[in-house]
């Protein structure tokens, strides 16, 4: 049995940590938070493109590095730990993944090399305001080669060049590829809970688009895409949870009250122990999901939902209790606690609400006729 990342993968992790510690310290994330006109950290993005991270999951024939999903999981965890402000998740976990899974040969040839090279940023345009998107509620339409309707929030929608749009076409729902820089597209940034993950409204009025995957298969493709992306989001969340716990631990050790370190108060010790428990459960579930993703195992739907639900919980728990551990300082703009708290919330709904994932998890459990002991 080998349930560990390999030595090479761990080298990649070290390289990633070095890069992120130097290029994307929390002060860099904060710079994006502080400036409403900066949607992401362009230097960090350029740096990670140069390192080849945007091409990790893309085969060499399409200009990628041709590593694999375990490597992508490693990077996701480190990006999550650092809170780096980049459109990586939208571009890599969603747009690139959708092209890899459903793209025609021509679509892959035309887009994957540019995504790998970081020339193009991609995203997924699904939501249309509040509430869980369903085929009956979608208003965005496709007809005769073009899209019309509003999508919001679209993660990184303001900076992306390419979008996978989920739209209705007569009776069915399908995925479409469209360029966001072309005619018939207008977009505007919308304020969000985590300004280091920008959100936009994207409005289509006759924007040229082409089908991605099968006509009428939009919802099943979405299911596939979400199962894969959920694993990567979960790794980001798990990395974030670990970082928030570590921040709380460090602060508690150094902060004194009543003549002793607050880390010696049992209420604080047990709080940190609970954060460790939540984060360990999530981390272990991520490992299993990484295995399922990298081997295309039939367990993927259950493994992905399990990783996602426990990672949502762990990051929320760790980020909110990190603030509590800091006392009044934790509540200030100046302290970095807020960045974990904001990111945890943004990631918890970005890919569909916690409840929607709990629902998927139980559906997968029900389908899993032979429950493992």
């Amino acid at each position, binding site marked *: *049995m080998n349930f560990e990342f390999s030595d090479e993968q761990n080298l990649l992790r070290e390289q990633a940590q070095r890069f992120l510690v130097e290029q994307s310290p929390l002060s860099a994330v904060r710079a994006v938070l502080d400036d409403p006109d900066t949607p992401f950290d362009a230097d960090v993005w350029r740096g990670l493109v140069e390192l080849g991270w945007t091409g990790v999951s893309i085969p060499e024939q399409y200009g990628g590095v041709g590593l694999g999903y375990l490597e992508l999981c490693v990077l996701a965890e480190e990006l999550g730990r650092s809170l780096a402000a980049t459109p990586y998740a939208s571009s890599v976990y969603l747009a690139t993944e959708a092209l890899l899974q459903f793209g025609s040969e021509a679509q892959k040839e035309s887009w994957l090399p540019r995504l790998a090279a970081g020339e193009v940023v991609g995203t997924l345009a699904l939501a249309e305001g509040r509430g869980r998107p369903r085929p009956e509620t979608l208003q965005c339409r496709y007809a005769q080669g073009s899209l019309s309707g509003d999508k919001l929030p679209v993660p990184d929608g303001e900076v992306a060049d390419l979008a996978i749009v989920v739209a209705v076409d007569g009776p069915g729902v399908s995925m479409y590829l469209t360029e966001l820089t072309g005619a018939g597209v207008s977009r505007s940034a919308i304020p969000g809970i985590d300004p280091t993950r920008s959100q936009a409204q994207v409005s289509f009025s006759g924007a040229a688009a082409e089908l991605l995957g099968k006509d009428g298969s939009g919802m099943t493709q979405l299911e596939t895409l979400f199962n894969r992306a959920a694993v990567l989001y979960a790794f980001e969340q798990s990395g974030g949870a670990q970082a928030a716990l570590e921040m709380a631990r460090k602060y508690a050790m150094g902060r004194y009250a009543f003549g002793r370190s607050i880390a010696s108060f049992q209420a604080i010790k047990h709080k940190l*122990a*609970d954060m460790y428990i939540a984060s360990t459960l999530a981390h*272990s579930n991520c490992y299993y999901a990484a295995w399922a993703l990298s081997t295309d195992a039939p367990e993927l739907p259950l493994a992905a*939902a*399990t990783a996602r639900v426990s990672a949502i919980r762990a990051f929320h728990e760790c980020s909110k209790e990190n603030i509590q551990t800091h006392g009044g300082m934790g509540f200030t703009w100046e302290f970095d606690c807020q960045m974990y708290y904001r990111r945890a919330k943004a990631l918890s709904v970005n890919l569909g609400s916690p409840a929607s994932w709990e629902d998927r998890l139980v559906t997968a459990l029900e389908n899993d006729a032979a429950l493992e002991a």
Partner: protein
Amino acid sequence: MNFDDTPQEAEFRAEARAFLSANATLKADASPRDETEAEYIIRAKAWQKLKADNSWACINYPKEFGGRGATPMETIIWGQEEANYDVPVQPFAIGLGMCGPVMMMYASEEHKQARMPRMVEGVDIWCQLFSEPGAGSDLANLRTRCERDGDDWIINGQKIWTSGAHYCDWGILVTRSDPTVPKHKGLTFFFLDMKSPGIEIRPIRQISGDANFNEVYFSDVRIPDSQRLGEVGDGWKVSLTTLMNERLAVGTAAGADVPHLLDLARRMDIDGEPAINNPAVREKLARWHCERAGLRNTRYRVMSALSQGKTPGPENSITKVVSAAKLQDVSCFGIDLMDMGGVMLGRDGQELLDGKLFHGSFLGAPGMRIAGGTDEILRNIIAERVLGLPQDVRVDKGIPFNEVEQGSG
């Protein structure tokens, strides 16, 4: 990443399975039993004997004590395989898991030769006489006295919560030899014959109504000095060896779990709909599945490290805290799902099976949260040993035992 056994592991697993399938029934094929505790013990002893005759009794022990010197990975594989079968192993868990290792480490050659084979072959069952009315989490606060008398020690005092004492033949015992020094320093450790004159065993009924543990009273009980384990005053060090083994031995709490709840939720209905379709039910199932899978996947990480000859990380420290609380919550919710009928144990068939499982787990779970280190003590351990936070302030530190304030509890 893969979950495959190495060729050696696969071979070992096949060997284990061959023995088990030839000699036991799979849990899945077994029918529920109705037997007394005495009948259960007889069956357990027979199973232990059969295993011993075939070198499966305690595979992690060295060969000279009936083991195979198995690797941690082989021990886990055997445990996984044996757990699939309907076999009675529980009475030997404390003896083989905690008493055996301490005997092998500290007992004289002569005593090892006399006692170990009987333990391994299931002739003798062993118990652990540690906790006292005034010493549970704070075990070192114990006050059962030992006093030297020639070649013997005379024991007076009381132990409590001793699992299995009423059917046990031998026990390990920690006592106070010197009350004038700080609590950890004045302890001395022994093993003893549970049939020794002066021992009185009184069963304690637990919440479920069963009586699996006992009060054990000592009035002038004599133990030969040769049965002392470790030096006089070194009892704490010896106890720690067994407590470490206990933390390894106390694994996942058995009982009602997610698959049972899922199955029940399909059969129960809420307002004419299967309960499984109710969002509140789904939310809970999802949460508990995350814990269950998280523990399993944590175990995989530990196994992976062992399989590759590495030292596992501290992740496993979360196992008992998570699984005991889950057992309580899952069984509680299972009863809730039965609505007004949840109070009933059930008449027969599936109804009775459900009742036994969910009532039984509900009534057993509080004990799981206490035995082998309470939830709170385990959180202290995670905080201190894993996260490196400071130890609790100890108001009794450095104070002689007989000057430390004792409460009324």
